[in-house]
């Protein structure tokens, strides 16, 4: 067994230190080493976006990231999206508009949508498409997810 390394990074706003194998998938590190199971595995090949997290403020698929590359980074998972005062506007809108059916894509979808609204507070349909087309959903046909994101933008703006 290759050696573990000590990893230091920021997780949902708090400093975190952890001993892991450097090639552990970030997805497994979150789910198994840290017990944060909100981040989902839908494919393990970078296609579905269910494992999306924010790494230094950018959306990435955690199934494609080895633990070593998280060293020193700022990591936000679905567990870090809501605040003490309540749901993130994107989460509230997904709930209100039935944008989450089975809910398996929802954590990744919420992460991607939150990132979009931060970069682009008033997204048009094309912006939403560009931001969310890497998040597969098999339940909704996306119509209500787009509605939710647009509603969240209105409430944020």
């Amino acid at each position, binding site marked *: *067994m*290759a050696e573990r390394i000590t990893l230091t990074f920021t997780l949902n706003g708090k400093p975190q230190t952890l001993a892991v*194998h*450097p*090639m*552990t*998938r970030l997805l*497994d590190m979150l789910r198994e080493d840290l017990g944060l199971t909100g981040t989902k595995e839908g494919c*393990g*090949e*970078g*296609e579905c*976006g269910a494992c*999306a997290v924010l790494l230094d403020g*950018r*959306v*990435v*698929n955690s*199934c*494609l*990231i*080895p633990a*070593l*590359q998280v*060293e020193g980074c700022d990591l936000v998972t679905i567990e870090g999206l809501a605040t003490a005062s309540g749901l993130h506007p994107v989460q509230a809108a997904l709930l209100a508009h039935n944008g989450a059916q089975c809910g398996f894509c929802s954590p990744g979808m919420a992460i*991607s949508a939150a990132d979009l609204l931060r970069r682009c507070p008033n997204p048009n349909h094309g912006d939403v*498409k*560009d*931001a969310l*087309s*890497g*998040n*597969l959903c098999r339940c909704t046909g996306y119509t209500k997810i787009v509605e939710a994101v647009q509603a969240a933008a209105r409430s944020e703006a």
Partner: protein
Amino acid sequence: MRGFLPAMELQRPASLSEALQMLAAHTGRPFAGGTDLMVVYNAGKLRETRFLDIARLPELQGIRETPEYLDLGALCTFTELLAHPAIHRHFPNLVKSAKATGALAIQNRGTLGGNIANASPAADTPPCLLAYGAELELVSPRGTRVVPYELFHQGYKVMDLAADELVTRIRVPKPSGTSVHYFRKVGTRQAQAIAKLSLALVAQVADGCVANLRIGLGAVAPAPVRACHAEAVLQGQPLANLPVAVALEALLADMSPIDDIRSTAHYRSIVTRNLLAQALRTLSATGN
């Protein structure tokens, strides 16, 4: 996850020179954004077990602009490319191909160097880089050399890249004068899709004629290729009267498409020619 974690190694060299020494000592293979390697690892099909994380080496980062060319670090992600105004100004095909690569999370992580060195025949930026006449800077402990990108791919996953070499930078000359840029990728769907085929064309136009034209093809040969036969037919021809039929015929000699899981040889052959015809319609239209 089908990869065998206990057998894996991933180290981070502190500097470019250390990285090159480690490469030369066979301590590991380069690991950049991981968007190709991790997929193979997840599938349990990664043959190598030792890797060097090169993602933070400063020499491989950033975009520098000179009057003649753009100098792109191999570690530039697609998102970084898309954020740079000079790319939009001079290389619209690179914009299109970067936008057509995977989806946002892939564009945030995947690198230009990785796209080149992964040597997939279906990769999206290589046909564009071929059509723009790019050059690669390769560095090893033995020194630095520059190779024209069109000579880099030599067969299926065969490259002019030694085991101790890194792709450090990609230089793309700015097209001068009036130029026409065409890129189109045909994938399995509109986003998050690997190309069934793609075609990039860049032509400089002077005096109503094609002054300088290059065509890059994706997914119709063992590696990204230039369409030399078709180019030869079109070079110097008047825009008002392009020998379209002859060029389409010549394009057949530039391709060796196959049937695979994504498409058929027949479809690839026909639609690649359709794309060239469409590109040539765009080209003649600029003449009017």
